[in-house]
């Protein structure tokens, strides 16, 4: 059994590599960009699901961690030249002016810095009960944004950063996404992962069973922050331009939508939902833009797209609370069963 699963997984990964190879070669830039976004949102969704879905903490600070990650990689990877161009109001702080790092160490540092901030914010905030945590993390993300708008000689303030080298490609984004999936699966199925789930289920019972709530919450939060930082870094170097306004609550909202739709507490659900949400966010972009039908133009209505998505989020929580997958996961067993008997997918799965 285990052997079969191992082979099937390996084959799928090889197929993914082949697909990425062809996508990279032949698909147009727009589609590649969307695929990149799907992978990045997978990473972000998983990191948020670890905190919110698996550990049951209600954190709304994701945009803040992403901002830290995006700015870190951007500043570290911008060429000396581009730095001079960007920082025309006030030159960049001296120690940063000449550093140009390769992508990977920059991403790693982005994750580490974000995790560090996560740890520092988590240590006080995680002593609080659910709703306070939500507000404290939301506030923290806001503070990050305000700070980044005001630190002109480090972040270039409200002007943002342009000409960030477009290092993010399918290999990076999917490579890291696959790594994140594996990491999360190993984590969730370890004794630590079980402790996280216990905290989600019942904090009082968990601590009465000897689980140090604070330690495990901080752990989960810090790991989540790490991956959010890495995701932010990938995003910055994909888009090429970032500014503080990008990291508003809307960004956190999108990720929240992904994990709620996919199922809070399901890795599989998050992966599926990251693709669904990202693609539909793009596909529904037309709602916001004028549509030219040749003879006449239907004016686009700005905000319509987000109306659709907020209604979607509410419908899911109100009527379909467990999302696509609940807390179930993909397994080859269930998958093959479905193929063979065409039975509805994933019924009766166990956690």
């Amino acid at each position, binding site marked *: 059994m285990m052997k079969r699963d191992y082979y099937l997984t390996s084959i799928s990964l090889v197929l993914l590599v082949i697909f990425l190879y062809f996508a990279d070669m032949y698909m147009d830039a727009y589609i590649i960009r969307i695929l990149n976004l799907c992978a990045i949102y997978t990473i972000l969704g998983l990191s948020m699901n670890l905190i919110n879905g698996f550990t049951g903490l209600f954190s709304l600070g994701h945009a803040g961690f992403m901002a830290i990650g995006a700015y870190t990689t951007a500043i570290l990877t911008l060429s000396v030249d581009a730095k001079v161009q960007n920082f025309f109001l006030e030159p960049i702080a001296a120690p940063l002016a000449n550093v140009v790092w390769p992508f990977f160490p920059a991403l790693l540092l982005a994750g580490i810095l974000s995790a560090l901030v996560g740890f520092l914010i988590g240590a006080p905030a995680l002593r609080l009960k659910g709703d306070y945590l939500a507000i404290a993390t939301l506030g923290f993300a806001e503070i990050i944004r305000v700070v980044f708008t005001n630190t002109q000689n480090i972040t270039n303030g409200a002007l943002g950063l342009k000409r960030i080298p477009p290092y993010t490609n399918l290999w990076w984004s999917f490579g890291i996404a696959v790594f994140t999936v594996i990491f999360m699966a190993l984590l969730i199925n370890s*004794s630590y992962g079980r402790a996280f789930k*216990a905290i989600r*289920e*019942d904090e*009082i019972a968990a601590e009465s*069973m*000897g*689980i140090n709530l604070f330690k495990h919450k901080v752990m989960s939060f810090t790991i989540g922050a790490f991956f959010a930082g890495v995701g932010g870094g990938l995003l910055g170097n994909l888009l090429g331009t970032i500014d503080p306004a990008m990291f508003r609550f809307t960004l956190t909202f999108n990720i929240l939508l992904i994990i709620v739709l996919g199922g809070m507490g399901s890795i599989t659900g998050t992966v599926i939902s990251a693709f669904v949400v990202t693609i539909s966010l793009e596909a529904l972009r037309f709602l916001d833009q004028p549509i030219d039908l040749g003879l006449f133009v239907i004016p686009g209505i700005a905000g319509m797209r987000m109306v659709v998505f907020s209604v979607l989020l509410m419908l899911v929580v109100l009527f379909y609370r467990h999302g696509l997958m609940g807390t179930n996961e993909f397994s080859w067993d269930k998958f093959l069963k479905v193929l063979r008997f065409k039975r509805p997918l994933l019924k009766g799965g166990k*956690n």
Partner: protein
Amino acid sequence: MEMLRTENITMQFGGLTAVKDFNLKLNKGEIVALIGPNGAGKTTAFNMITGVYKPTKGKIYYKGRDITQMAPHSITKLGIARTFQNIRLFKNLSVIDNVLIANHLHVKSNLFEALLRVPKYKNEDRSMMKKSMELLEIVGLIDVKDEKSSSLPYGMQRRLEIARALATKPEVLLLDEPAAGMNPKETEDLTKFIKKIRDDFDLTIFMIEHHMQVVMGISERIYVFDYGITIAHGNPNEIQNNQRVIEAYLGVDDNA
């Protein structure tokens, strides 16, 4: 040998004194019961001992060590485990996961060792699994080990709570109304079972119970609460013949 001792522990909620000046002493290997009418403050006493509530006043000593201000998880780690009156299983998790979780406090591998599945962690994981299976065997839940814990019938959930508490490797076990909701047959089994785990696991047991059959059958000593006050303390015989207890408690409770 003295396992647990409380000195005048008192718990106030706003104007209400739920427990007042409770002095408990548990010796190694004893089975001691705490009884009293509804709302007398029994569960509150448990909550103070396990660190869930911090007493307004008084001290708690475990094997001579002051644990009054300790966090619940540290107290559990020292060797005091409990079950809950209103069953607090990890509802959406499987039966075996519920027990495995209670092993986590003894895991020595750190997060990275666990993630990388190094041999040290794998060994720990394997022995955790083995012990949990043994516990499920003992409480008779091995056949439902993969069921979601909330799907079990009531009696089984109570037994799972006990298995989970035992998995933390306690020396003192606190049981909050273990027989609640059980039929006479189940109650009788439970009585035997409590004695058995006391002997097999070398436990000291402190339990809250309404079923007089259970209480009188297995406890060596009994404390009686009424409105938070300890109105009597003695062996079953003394308690049964204590006038104050009869007035305050036995007259009120229809289980008696």
